């Protein structure tokens, strides 16, 4: 039930991100200073912001950017995290200790601080944000994979398959992956939610992406001073962020 609701919410947000920029003809950066902070109207379905830009167009582009960047960050954190986790569990010894220490060292830095450090390399660009988020997120996938795989690799079922002459590929496919996939999927859903929040928070405090780019956190910062004149304008990105995170949490929670 909650899983279906989560899927519907996410599907709606994803559809908005994919189809929105195509359907909405307005340029998200085009200013019209004669029509600032207009309420929703047939011309601007979600109203305009303090520079007269079409909020629907900005929101659609922002959704594409926020969600796309978050999913990309989680993927590029999960893939190396899982691979390193498998390598650590399978080889043990020195390799395991070295990888675990690297993960511990990463965890010693607060995630957002790590993102800030990398983001400082090229302020306002997308790639340092992506790199920073991936660098902060991979540890979770590494730890989950390593812990689960280490227990399984020492279990009678894997011992049996080895004695029966099966190789590592079979053990991965038959024993490890079926047990790893569900918690990894849950972790990835939580991870996307966390990354969306982090990108928003960084945009909000002015360290992440820069204007005139459209991004949820950035839009909230820009619209916050105009809250009294146009509360609806601030409500749109906030509501989208809330619905996305809620959808991901419902999906991840139901999977456990």
């Amino acid at each position, binding site marked *: 039930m909650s899983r279906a609701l989560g899927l519907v919410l996410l599907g709606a947000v994803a559809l908005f991100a994919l189809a929105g920029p195509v359907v909405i003809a307005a340029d998200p950066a085009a200013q019209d200073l004669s029509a600032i902070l207009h309420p929703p109207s047939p011309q601007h379905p979600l109203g305009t912001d303090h520079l007269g830009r079409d909020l629907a167009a900005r929101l659609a582009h922002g959704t594409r950017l926020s969600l796309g960047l978050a999913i990309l960050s989680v993927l590029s954190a999960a893939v190396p995290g899982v691979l390193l986790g498998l390598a650590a569990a399978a080889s043990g010894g020195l390799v395991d200790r070295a990888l675990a220490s690297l993960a511990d060292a990463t965890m010693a830095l607060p995630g957002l601080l790590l993102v800030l450090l990398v983001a400082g390399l090229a302020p306002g660009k997308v790639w340092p944000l992506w790199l920073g988020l991936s660098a902060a997120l991979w540890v979770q996938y590494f730890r989950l994979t390593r812990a689960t795989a280490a227990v399984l690799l020492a279990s009678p*079922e894997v011992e049996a398959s080895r*004695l*029966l*002459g099966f190789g590592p590929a*079979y053990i991965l496919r038959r024993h490890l992956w079926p047990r790893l996939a569900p918690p990894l999927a849950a972790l990835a859903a939580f991870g996307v939610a966390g990354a969306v929040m982090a990108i928003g928070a960084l945009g909000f405090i002015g360290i992440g992406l820069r204007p005139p780019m459209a991004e949820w956190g950035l839009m909230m910062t820009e619209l916050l001073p105009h809250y009294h004149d146009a509360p609806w304008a601030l409500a749109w990105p906030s509501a989208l962020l809330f619905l996305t995170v809620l959808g991901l949490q419902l999906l991840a929670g139901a999977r456990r």
Partner: protein
Amino acid sequence: MSGLVVTDLAVIARDGARPVDGVSFSLRPGVPLTLLGETGSGKTLVAQAVMGTLAPDLRATGSIRFEGRELIGLAGRERRAFWGRRIALLPQEPWLALDPTMRAARQVKEVFALVRGLGQREAAERTRAALRAVGLEGAERAFPFQLSGGMAQRLAFAATAASEAALLIADEPTKGLDAALRDGVALLLGAVAASRRMLLTITHDVSVARRLGGEVAIMLEGRIVEHGPAEAVLAAPRHDYARRLVAAEPAAWPKRRHPPPGPVVLAGRRLAKRYGPRTLFANLSLAVHAGETVAVTGPSGSGKTTLGNVLLGLVHADAGTLSRAPGVARVRFQKLWQDPPAAFARGVPLGRLIEDLARRHGIARAPIEALLARLRLSPGLLGRSAEAISGGELQRFALARALLLDPVFLFADEPTSRLDPITQQETIALLADTAAERGLALLLVTHDADIAARVAARRLDVAAGEVRMVA
């Protein structure tokens, strides 16, 4: 009106099934009653009905009169008032029931002080006496993890017995224990009965029933099929199932004839293995011949499993050499595990696992089907996963899986310790027959000296570190 009188007890599930039906017995102080039966026979449900701990989707009908009061129909709160005061339960696997953060003496003293309401001084005194009675003096300040399995069992017993409840229920008190610990528990339970209290023991171990004496009731599919004095029932059972159950006791098995052994298939010379500071075995030499069964015995934790794993090459020995028969592929050295479901990929249909194996080693379909039929495994089981079939069937499946690779050596690590007695007898017989037929060297780890004596040509006692011929 002392005693426990159960009349026409039935346990009914929501879907109308009756896992227990028409059970009647009475229990008097001083005469213990043992309910014997296999897993799923409903014996634990009888104990739960008496205790009042049935699962919420089960209900009991009939009558359970305890000290003149009818227990069926009492509210949960009224049932709980009996617990630990009038009716006490000795838990299964006591090391899980003890509080891991509480010292031994306090676990017992709490019962005296809180349940019996004695003063601190008297409670402390009684605790000392109770621990002395079970041979735990000196272990008062130990935590459960510092105790051996047998000591934990005795501590749990002391804590349970401290209540001096009129009725003591022991649910599978010997589950997971080796022979020496099993006899120790039977001795303690016997003392309870001798002190003119009521004792209801649930077990599948015929030898426990024999040691306790008193009365025995044998359960099958939710009903009591035979009931009477222990001596008479166990010496001359009348019901067909009861006969099979008593005959399945390893001490009653026929002795096997041993064919002359073939060439050596696997030999270890001067093997040594330490586990932390403990030496499991040192300077141990052993040669296993084709077609012979060698039993490995010894107390729990003595390194029986490790020895087998060393011989298979799964664990490296600290010292010594290992030689396999030349020209024999590694996959022809196989193993059976103690807990059958743990040795299969979870949630995968067994048929697919067999297919995987056939594809990996290019085995044709016909011999697989013949082997499954020989091991009495119906094709219907192939669609199910390991968790969905019985332990006995699964262990036969594990045997089939190993036999498909035409092994020369099979290490069976307590393959029947989790199976019911009749299933155990069938499984061991099948293993030994297969070994004899195929000229397979079988290394059988068991904690049961009777099994070792009936099945094996030679016996290796790991604690002693030497190979001994069975007389």
